[in-house]
């Protein structure tokens, strides 16, 4: 009897703790949402928590008037879509070939890949190589260097090895070549594994701003994250010049930033609940994946 009472107490405390924990995650995010709908000058007085005090749409209206944000947004969408498709194609094909133990050169490639997991050239030599390939100020710098991932290849390869061989064998007898088998049979059967990798690579492409910082000076190729980064880090003069295009008393650089953050995060937040099952299975497929 005492045992059960203690247990009930534990469960209640645990639930209260979890509610507290969830609040610590959610409230700050709602705070930004509230600020993005609030008059910028009013917000400077402080004291805004979960609801806007002086509601306005001016922050959103103002940033949506800026044509560069549409440009940046489409760059991000393009790099995410093309990046994911290319990554799945290149890494997936390599993984399929590598799943055949009779592949000539298989062992050498595995060893090479393992070396790259422990050693790499680091930021500066990689920068020099990428630049010398003419990828600076080039859209493809977002895509080509990350088309292949050894880590993702291993995950896919292990998945393919667990597929029943009989299906492939019968396709072979029907005269299908390796490309047809890969695209028509192996790919559809491996959708869970591909979805997981697509998710992680998609999030990477959506969120990354450092590649742009390293290689881009051409503003028309900035992704949305780098646009926001510039908005956040540009010193007073530059950012007020930016905001100064629209003279207003209702927004500040901060309130514009808050609205931009919401717009940038929105797509991830919208797809997030639907993708949850994939990243959990992905963590289990791959062990540790950042």
């Amino acid at each position, binding site marked *: 009897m005492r045992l059960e009472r203690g247990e009930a107490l534990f469960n209640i405390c645990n639930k209260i703790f979890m509610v507290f924990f969830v609040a610590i995650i959610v409230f700050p995010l709602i705070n930004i949402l509230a600020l993005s709908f609030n008059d910028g000058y009013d917000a400077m007085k402080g004291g805004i928590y979960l609801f806007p005090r002086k509601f306005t749409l001016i922050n959103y209206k103002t940033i949506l008037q800026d044509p560069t944000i549409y440009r940046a947004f489409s760059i991000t969408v393009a790099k995410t879509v093309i990046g994911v498709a290319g990554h799945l194609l290149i890494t997936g094909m390599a993984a399929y070939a590598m799943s055949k133990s009779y592949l000539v050169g298989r062992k050498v490639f595995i060893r090479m890949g393992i070396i790259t997991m422990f050693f790499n050239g680091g930021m500066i030599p990689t920068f020099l190589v990428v630049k010398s390939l003419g990828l600076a100020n080039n859209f493809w710098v977002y895509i080509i260097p990350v088309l292949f991932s050894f880590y993702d290849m291993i995950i896919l390869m292990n998945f393919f090895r667990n597929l029943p061989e009989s299906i492939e064998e019968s396709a072979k007898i029907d005269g299908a070549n390796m490309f047809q088998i890969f695209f028509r049979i192996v790919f559809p059967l491996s959708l869970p594994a591909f979805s997981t990798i697509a998710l992680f690579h998609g999030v990477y492409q959506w969120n990354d701003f450092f590649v742009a910082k390293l290689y881009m000076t051409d503003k028309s190729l900035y992704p949305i994250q780098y646009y926001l980064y510039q908005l956040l880090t540009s010193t007073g003069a530059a950012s007020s010049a930016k905001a100064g295009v629209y003279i207003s008393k209702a927004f500040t650089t901060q309130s514009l930033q808050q609205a931009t953050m919401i717009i940038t995060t929105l797509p991830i937040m919208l797809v997030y609940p639907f993708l949850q099952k994939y990243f*959990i299975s992905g963590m289990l497929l791959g062990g540790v994946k950042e």
Partner: protein
Amino acid sequence: MKRTFKEKWMSQWQLQVMVWPSIILLIVFSFIPMFGLITAFQDYSPLTGFFASEFVGLDNFKAFLGDSDFYNVLTNTLAISLLKLLIGFPLEIVLAILINELRAGPFKRVTQTISYLPHFLSWVILGGMIISWLSSSGLVNSLLMSLHLIQEPLPFLTNPNAYWWVATLTDIWKEVGWGTILYLAAMAGIDPSLYEAAKVDGARKLKRIWHITLPGISQIIVLMFVLRVGSVLGSNLEQALVLQSSSNIQRSEVIDLYVYHLGLTQGDFSFATAVGIFSSVVSVILLLLANVLTKRIHNSSIF
């Protein structure tokens, strides 16, 4: 009937076509940069290139080891990493255990979903949010003032002495939920009959957690610990890029950012590459040391 290499290759040319683009990418973007590490031993200039630049031996290494800036950067990196290790690492385990104790149902599902959420925010977004929260009229100062804990807003981001804590706590906020996934998966693999048996024997909840749950995930704990120790010098570049300002640079400059500033802002490629090599060599050594240590203590290791 031994087939020649060429015949074998030709019989599987389709597979070879599938794998070669990846081999080329691996060579170009992973192996060629490794040869570029040679710049660390040169007085590299973009005009003369890898082949014609003058060799200077270990001069670049001597230069940064004799530079007080470097020690400051190293201290910042280690301080932030160790704070994360001391606070974040145990917190993940505790959180995973507590989530595991929740009864399966919507409450548990929602808790998990929300706990993973911040992991998917980019550091740019989160950095922007942190700047908002910590500003003088932001969430944290408003809250502290309305609770009368402080009279004046605290300058969290411009006070260099607060930076280590800001960096640590915001990183934990972002990653603690995500960090529970592997532990939860390991816990799901523990045989439920062990808990039933312990219950019959009258073991209380905390005892069951201590004697069943923790041993059940100890392998993963060891693995994560070794990996973490191996990455104490791998500072969070993106976080530092976003949160750094001229007023906190004394405490916010971490190794990767230092390499970036030296190499790409100041153009000192050789010096920056030398610092990069130092950091990766020390990381591999730490990884191996942590591995040996856990082998001694826990009898399990990752290699």
